[in-house]
């Protein structure tokens, strides 16, 4: 079965076409600058030169049409006809409390995603445009939605409630949701496989450290706590986001600096984190380069970043009463050996011991980087959210097909 995975943003759309027989990526690409006269479609097919096309794409419907033309192109395409696309899986950032797992799209699901616009005003409306655009272009093709928040719906009340007036939870659903769920879920499965132990007897802490960063306590395969909250601002220090801080800083700063709500929102989301402390960059690679040249602010930014992450690892060890494996993933987690080394340095009390040579190895493969006598196994697992979206979509579509054929058989009996 061929499955198209789509991540729709407000002015861009990324896609991958999977052949589920061996879970291979046939083509991947993106449409950028949707809504402009000079939109860019790019497509990469393994073993062939990349394609790039500039044209006017004013809406998501056209964007999806263009990407379908691209994958079924007689010369550059990878399939004979778009009829080969048997299902489409979408990434959706916010699933609220309604969606505890991936689901097939129907009218009720669409309505519920719309009702969540308030909680994710930048993301969910764009995802919705992606879903409608696929409906228009591929009528009748089943679509599934995979939520960033769904994996964390297993968090207990003690972890997801904020200690603020409870009426706010009832009225506005203000609670902790957590994000990067698809990634935490994927790497925890992979980690169990790599360790050769069943997921339901493992205590794991997964660190998704990329542009955004979050840390999750995964006990027996389910998320019991995660560092992001109502929005992706809570928790770890990030490239341009502050992460945890004293909430009183918000009104205090607004008053002292005469800031509006949107100013302070932008300050905490775009002007904080690594870029604020280093004064240089939000990119960890640049921070590390500057640090190597002796830049003190870059060093401080790096140290704070590591310190705050390590605190979460300590906290989650306490939450689960132990930890069997520590998993690093995403851009920084997969690539920065010095960050991993620094984080693990002060965890010797927990029994973490890195193998420096293994940690320093550069490879794209899932691997263990702890020493043989380390009580906690430390792993690096490249994340692959698209694959998990494709898998969930595949599962939902085949289940539906078999239940439908079951119903048909029952029908003939009667």
């Amino acid at each position: 079965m061929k499955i198209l995975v789509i991540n729709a943003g407000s002015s861009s759309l990324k896609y991958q076409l999977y052949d589920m027989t061996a879970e291979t990526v046939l083509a991947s690409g993106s449409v950028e600058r949707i809504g402009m006269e000079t939109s860019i479609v790019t497509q990469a097919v393994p073993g062939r030169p990349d394609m790039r096309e500039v044209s006017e794409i004013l809406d998501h419907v056209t964007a999806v049409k263009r990407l379908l033309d691209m994958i079924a192109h007689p010369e550059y395409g990878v399939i004979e006809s778009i009829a080969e696309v048997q299902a489409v899986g979408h990434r959706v950032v916010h699933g609220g409390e309604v969606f505890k797992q991936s689901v097939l799209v129907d009218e009720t699901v669409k309505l519920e995603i719309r009702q969540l616009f308030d909680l994710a005003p930048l993301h969910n409306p764009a995802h919705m445009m992606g879903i409608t655009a696929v409906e228009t272009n591929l009528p009748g093709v089943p679509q599934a939605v995979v939520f960033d928040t769904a994996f964390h719906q297993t968090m207990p009340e003690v972890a997801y409630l904020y200690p603020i007036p409870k009426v706010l939870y009832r009225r506005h659903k203000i609670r902790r949701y957590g994000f990067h769920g698809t990634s935490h879920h994927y790497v925890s499965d992979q980690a169990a496989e790599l360790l050769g132990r069943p997921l339901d007897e493992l205590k794991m802490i997964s660190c998704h450290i990329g542009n955004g960063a979050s840390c999750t306590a995964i006990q027996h395969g389910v998320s019991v706590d995660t560092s992001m909250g109502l929005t992706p601002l809570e928790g770890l220090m990030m490239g341009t986001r502050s992460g945890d801080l004293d909430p009183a800083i918000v009104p205090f700063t607004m008053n002292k600096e005469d800031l509006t709500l949107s100013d302070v929102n932008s300050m905490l989301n775009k002007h904080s984190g690594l870029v604020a402390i280093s004064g240089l960059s939000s990119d960890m690679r640049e921070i590390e380069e500057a640090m190597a040249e002796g830049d003190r602010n870059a060093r401080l930014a790096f140290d704070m970043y590591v310190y705050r992450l390590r605190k979460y690892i300590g906290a989650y060890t306490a939450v689960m009463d132990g930890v069997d494996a520590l998993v690093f993933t995403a851009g920084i987690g997969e690539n920065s050996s010095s960050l991993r080394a620094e984080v693990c340095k002060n965890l010797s009390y927990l029994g973490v011991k890195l193998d420096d040579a293994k940690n320093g190895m550069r490879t794209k493969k899932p691997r263990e980087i702890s020493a043989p006598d380390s009580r906690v196994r430390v792993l690096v697992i490249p994340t692959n959210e698209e694959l998990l979206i494709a898998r969930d979509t595949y599962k939902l579509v085949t289940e539906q097909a078999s239940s439908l054929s079951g119903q048909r058989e029952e029908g003939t009996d009667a």
Partner: protein
Amino acid sequence: MAVRKVGVVGAGTMGRGIAEMLAFKGLDVLLVEKTESNLELGLATIAQSLDKQIDKWALTQAEKKLVLNRIHPTHTLDELAECELIIETITEELEAKLAVMRELDRAAGAETIIASNTSTLSLTELASVTEHPQRVIGLHFIHPVSHIDLVEIVRGLKTSESTFDATKHFVEKIIHKKGIMVFESPGFVTTRLICLHINEALKVLEEGVASEEDIDSAMRMGYSFKYGPFEMCDRFGLDAVQAALENMFHEYGELKYRPSIVLKKMVRAGQLGVKTGAGFFNYDKDGDRI
């Protein structure tokens, strides 16, 4: 109607503010000024305003670049032919506005909506010099445009229902501001009420009832105004307030609209408020109170 390109005629205080706000919302803006120097000054002031927002953490350098890239300076109204909407923001003088309206009507595409940012002049009169008065409408923005989420959508006598609907859609769905519908009347709602407020404050001052500072504190703290009447007047520009009052005095003929003597005197002395560094109070070049 999908609006992607908007023409803004005039790069004065309002034109700049409108152009900056539109570009920030992701629209392409054609900004028209008569002279190269005015155009340069307009763009420089927009850049300065964006820098000020960066200082307030409201914007990043990358976002500033994007916003500026969406503003295309031009000298001729002919280039506005490709715009779906044109907003005229030139000086509040009838003859000048009529001339611009005539030219816009000729230059604009048949489907284009022509809006005026006038606060006191008659929309019907502005529309009367065009061939298609049904597509002329008022869009009265309030300074500072980026921060005030209210727009008065003004209907002239011949403004068509479809022009109004498209404009309302633009205001509420594209630039996400609250649009209130007002029928043509000098000063509409906002200018009429606020100029009278300022004029009355001037009378209180003339009568020696209280000082500028205390009158401002009273209204700011007592009634939750962001600025008191005098600082407000400084920020609007004393000349603009005087012009608005004179237009309304002329139209309504009521004495309450007659500009205060103190106001006239200050305008004659060139003490126009924030833009000249001094009005009722003093300001630095960033427009902050000294």
